[in-house]
């Protein structure tokens, strides 16, 4: 069964607490924004292939916080090597969720490798992720939400979603602002904590 991407992301970010979020470019960045723009979400506007590595750098810098990367199958395929890099570092606090619609959504819905037989969760498992799962139901999405907050990572989830284009909900475009608000929120969050 394939899921609606917005339902998946809304469920994953419900009760997000002090979760730190990096979103890959394109639809995943719109999805996290549709779930509620947040200073501790860093939506990417470019740097295709870099989302998981950005999540790794953040997870290593903030070992007491939970870090979630939400990205797409095309973006993940461009940075496949980063799965091996994460598999070696094995940060317990990192989850990488790929919203897999088997398409390059921003360029006209052309097929990606996952439409043609490549098993991303299998790659993550082989690369050394503590847990790698394929998700095809909202019940499993709920389980994934628990893992994001409490599981022993690194966790990888390939969530099969419909090749649909929900209405655009765009995050702020200024990368300097997105970086600044994230760092400020983290610093004030730390002071309060």
């Amino acid at each position, binding site marked *: 069964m394939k899921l609606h991407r917005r339902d998946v992301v809304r469920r994953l970010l419900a009760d997000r607490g002090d979760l730190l979020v990096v979103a890959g470019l394109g639809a995943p960045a719109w999805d996290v924004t549709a779930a509620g723009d947040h200073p501790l979400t860093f939506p990417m506007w470019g740097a295709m292939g870099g989302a998981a590595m950005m999540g*790794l750098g953040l997870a*290593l*810098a*903030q070992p007491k916080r939970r870090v979630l990367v939400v990205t797409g199958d095309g973006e993940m395929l461009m940075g496949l090597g980063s799965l091996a890099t994460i598999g070696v570092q094995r940060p317990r606090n990192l989850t990488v969720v790929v919203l897999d619609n088997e398409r390059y959504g921003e360029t006209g819905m052309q097929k990606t490798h996952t439409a043609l037989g490549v098993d991303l969760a299998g790659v993550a498992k082989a690369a050394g992720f503590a847990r790698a799962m394929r998700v095809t139901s909202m019940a499993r999405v709920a389980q994934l939400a628990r893992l994001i907050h409490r599981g022993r990572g690194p966790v990888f989830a390939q969530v099969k979603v419909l090749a649909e284009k929900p209405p655009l909900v765009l995050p702020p475009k200024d990368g300097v602002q997105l970086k600044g608000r994230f*760092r400020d929120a983290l610093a004030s969050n730390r002071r309060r904590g």
Partner: protein
Amino acid sequence: MTANASSQPSGWTADAHRFLRTARARQIAVVPDAGLSRLLALCESDRTMRVVRLTTEEEGVALLAGAWLGGEKGILLMQSSGVGNCVNMLGLALACRFPLLMLVTMRGEPGESNPAQVPMGSAVERVLDAMGVQVSRTEREDEIAFLLAAAFDRAYADESPHAVLIAQRALGFKEFK
């Protein structure tokens, strides 16, 4: 000039490591090169540092951006061929003004014995410049640690990308024998 880079005695690595430790560079992102192996070994044995082995150098640009989001500093170590792998990802550092320091050991310079290294090696400075990365280059081993420290401090003060290029002449040429 014909010595193997990895056996060349050099004091710059100890100075560079000491600086990075004092400056709290915590994430050491690397695709290895012979000329960087001693620095890498020092960082690996330093409990205040985390060496992150990359499959390709562009991973390090994104890693260090994420590190800075989380408040940590770092450095990206690579051979000059890796500069080409970084180009698109440098857009992240530039568009969002993330600090970045790349320490690059050069190949493909005059005296290079492998012709395959020449096209990228001879374009490294122009490529970095075209992307808006500030470059300093040295042919003297005793300048490396100073330039590294200056570029690191500037990168984190200005939140801007910098590269320090170490000429082949500074560390010795690789021979195939």
